């Protein structure tokens, strides 16, 4: 085999002899450029193969298979609650990222910088009060939707085999959602935050055997200090976003694989 280019590898000539629109031409140029460097086409082929294997071979849905009349089951609107939780989560993430530009997790000063930055957002920042309001409400709506979603899953028996794992994953998700809410509740560092934090420390301390260790880990000590606020901040804006986003993706991925449980 020589290093000379073969006729059939002359992609440029091949492109010229075809009558391509500018869009097609540009697309092919980019594709070929990338493919020469990254072997994109191989991966595309794998994806395509996967797509056909996964999508074109779906079993018939339960209603189709048994020809149960396509009556609209009156519970069906409740099946939107999972998606509604996801939407509220996305809204909270966007508004939260914007709030993050102005917030500082510091207890120094009197009142604390944390409190002052939130007050600044609410009173001085253009659109800031609305932003905080949106963040707050989307969080509340998400929690409510997740709870109702769980009730929907329970009362439609959708947690039964083969969906037990997704149910347990859901329990983890609703717990993390609440931890999300709780850590956010502490961030403004006002009286409500402070005393809710106090209860949190006491609850951790009363866990048998590992109580003190948990309090140290989550609250950075047995009293509320700068360390507490910083830990809550990192939980709220760094740790939980990654974990919860990943778990939601897995949760929905499993639903995608298994399909929605239909009533009999």
């Amino acid at each position, binding site marked *: 085999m020589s290093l000379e280019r073969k006729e059939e590898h002359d992609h440029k000539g091949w492109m010229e002899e075809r009558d391509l629109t500018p869009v097609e031409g540009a697309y092919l140029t980019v594709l070929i450029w990338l493919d020469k460097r990254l072997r994109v086409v191989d991966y595309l082929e794998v994806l395509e193969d996967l797509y056909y294997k996964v999508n074109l071979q779906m*079993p018939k849905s339960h209603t189709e298979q048994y020809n149960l009349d396509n009556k609209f089951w009156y519970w069906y609107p409740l099946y939107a609650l999972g998606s509604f939780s996801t939407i509220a989560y996305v809204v909270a993430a966007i508004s939260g990222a914007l709030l993050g530009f102005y917030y500082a997790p510091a207890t120094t000063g009197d009142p604390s910088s944390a409190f002052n930055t939130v007050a600044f957002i609410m009173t001085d920042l253009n659109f800031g009060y*609305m932003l905080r309001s949106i963040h707050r*409400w989307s969080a509340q709506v998400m929690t409510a939707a997740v709870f109702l979603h769980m009730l929907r899953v*329970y009362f439609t*028996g959708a947690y*039964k085999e083969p969906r037990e794992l997704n149910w347990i994953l859901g329990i983890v998700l609703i717990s993390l959602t609440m931890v999300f809410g709780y850590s956010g509740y502490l961030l403004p560092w006002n009286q409500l935050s402070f005393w809710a934090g106090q209860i949190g420390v006491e609850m951790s301390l009363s866990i048998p055997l590992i109580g003190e260790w948990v309090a140290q880990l989550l609250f950075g000590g047995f009293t509320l200090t700068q360390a507490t606020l910083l830990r809550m901040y990192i939980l709220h804006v760094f740790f939980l976003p990654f974990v919860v986003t990943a778990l939601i993706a897995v949760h929905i991925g499993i639903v995608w694989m298994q399909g929605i449980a239909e009533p009999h």
Partner: protein
Amino acid sequence: MSDTDTTDADEPDRAETGGRAMTDGGEPDAETDGGEPVADGTGIVAPDDETPTWRERKERTQGLGRLTYEYFERARREDQDLRTESDYIERDVLAFPTWPHEMIRNLSLTSFFVGLIILLSATLPPEMAAPADPSTTPAIILPDWYLYWSFGLLKLGPLNPELAILGGEKLMADRTYGVLANLVVVGVIAIVPFLNKGSARRPVEQPFWAAVGVFGVIFAATISALSIKNLVPIDSHLLFDLTFLLPFVGGFITYAVLKTMREGYMFSLNRRYYRLRPPK
């Protein structure tokens, strides 16, 4: 094609259409084996028909790996059987187009829900409490509403058993008891799928489990009310009793109603179901 100097006239075309053409290519094996070594790089990846099958992989491995492959083989056979059996029907995707129909529907639903959130935010903005002050304990200490249930479980002190063996001492502090109650509640919810099995889906098919669910929902509400008892205009002892009474009342009513509905409902459901899947 791993071999470029083939004599077959339409071979180059096939090669362009990708790997799938390889398997129906005819007799190229002999050429590859006998001919000069191929140096164009295409031979590096095993062609489709040389990829080891599960059986071959199984033969080369032992121990746990071997078990894995044996299972794979079984699972594949089972899949295949299920597929050939008539009650596992496959179909090509014949559906509602994703674009634009489905997307527009999703977008409108999404904008509706986002609009709802924005409306709430605009009409009911949150308040800001006084700055944190460790030296003054406020009269009302509250988490957000969705944690009331957990907060309420901390107030179960009166239910903490006083053990006679310990001379009337409690086994654990009320606070520990409350924290454990939280764990128990979450744990019980988590194992529901392992307690209630079977294929029933509608509440009416399983009145008992529907009743358990209603019990849970009402309990979540009453225990939340208990957690803010200083804000609820009911005598606190009465509230404590109601906290545990109402869930049972709700559960019993659900059970009675569903049990009554069940007779007629199951009749038509069974008739339809068994007509389609006659019992073996």
